[in-house]
């Protein structure tokens, strides 16, 4: 998995991920979220458009990121997941808290 972090106004960071969001990538993602929040960006928009596949460990990392950001008074939002990612979110009902936005850069435009 590869990632980039783009800092935007209002404490929002856009994290772009690509490749497989699996057990190996999950550890990396936890570190990325932790350090982004620590650097003063508790609102994270995850751009998943380049994620090909997510497994349960990857979902675990997103859930962990949601907890971390919310504890810091922010939120984690996801954008542009593919069908496989959507199915995982749907089966686990995690779409209730990880709602998919169309575009990461505007995921926080409503606050």
């Amino acid at each position, binding site marked *: 998995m590869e990632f980039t972090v783009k800092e935007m106004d209002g404490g929002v960071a856009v994290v772009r991920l690509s490749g497989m969001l699996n*057990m190996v990538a999950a550890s990396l993602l*936890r570190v990325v979220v932790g350090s982004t929040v620590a650097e003063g960006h508790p609102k994270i928009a995850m751009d998943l458009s380049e994620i090909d596949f997510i*497994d*349960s*460990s990857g*979902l*675990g990392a997103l*859930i*962990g990121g949601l*907890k971390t950001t919310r504890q810091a008074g922010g939120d984690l939002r996801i954008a542009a997941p593919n*069908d*496989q990612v959507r*199915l*995982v979110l*749907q*089966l*686990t*009902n*995690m779409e*209730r*808290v990880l709602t998919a936005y169309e575009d990461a850069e505007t995921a926080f435009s409503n606050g």
Partner: protein
Amino acid sequence: MIDVDRSRTLETLLESDLFGVAGDPRFDELARMSLDMFGIDFAAVAMVGPESLWFQSRHGTVATSTERANSFCEAAIQSDDMLVIEDVTKDPRFATHPAVIGGPGIRFFAGQPFHSPDGDRSGVYCIFATEPRQLDSDKRKSLAGVGQWIEGEFLATDELDRAAEMQRALLPKNAAPITGYQIAGTCVPAKAVGGDFFDWYPIEGGLGFTLGDVMGKGASAGILAATVRAVVRSAARKKNVTVAVERTATCLATDFGESSSFVTLFHARLRANDGRVSFVDAGHGLTAVIRVDGTTQRLWTSDFPLGVMPDEHWSRHTVMLDPGDMLVTFSDGVLDLYDGSLAAVDEVAALARASTSPQALVDTIERLARSAAATDDVTILVLRRDQE
């Protein structure tokens, strides 16, 4: 006196099950790297059978097995120590060996015996060259190190095998705990142990049953799966099906909060006299009732998995199993046996209708999982109410 039949059987077993022709990727890589590391022409990991040696992984050689008697490897096994023959033509034991005077014309041999976790001599790591070679003290240390590495690998495999055995022991075995119903299940882990489990046990007036999928794969998921199974079971006497789930959630929050793991779970209680199933679905979403009338009803709720949100609650739902109806619950590894989408539910339903019994359906899914070499744990539990 040697029981010939018994030793033949053992040889066959060794050949087919343990050291199959495919080789072991770990040792294949080792054999490949050995050519450069030692400046030699052939390398092999030879496993000892009662009469033969199997070259489990090899590079530069074509033989898959050889007679133990009079072989280079046997000499190393008998010495039970590193054996180095820098020029075999000067060694009276091997100067006239067929592989020396004929093809491939061996001139150099070194072998490092290795042992099983129980301390038995289990094989030899062998290197050969077609020219005489010196093996200096650094290379001898490397050769000994390779032997230790192989022993370490066998030990790790052995420990995983034991863990897998323990995990299998936790799965229910008695096939028909209540009259009027048939139940069957299987769990095919992607690795030696996995995070999926299923369970069933008698409760007052019926049957409790569960299918769970712990985040991740491997040993850590397996430990958590065993814990979840035990906590769910601890509520077997509680009539409300949500108690087991909430108890498990509390346990996860207190004991596993740090591991940030989560579990999806389908847990149910069947009332045998009328077929009423009360259930909780904690973010599992892969359960269906396949009706005798030809319809399929997917059971889903909007509840979260366990370990996701603090202070979460789970709702109790009910569904009736009429005579001939079948309830099927499975892990998401089953989706990957098909196209990875929810269309797999219909595929499983079609298989279910074509199956003569829950066991037959379970056997079919297990065969699919094993032949697909699934990358995720594949688990299924099937309960059918008998036709009246």
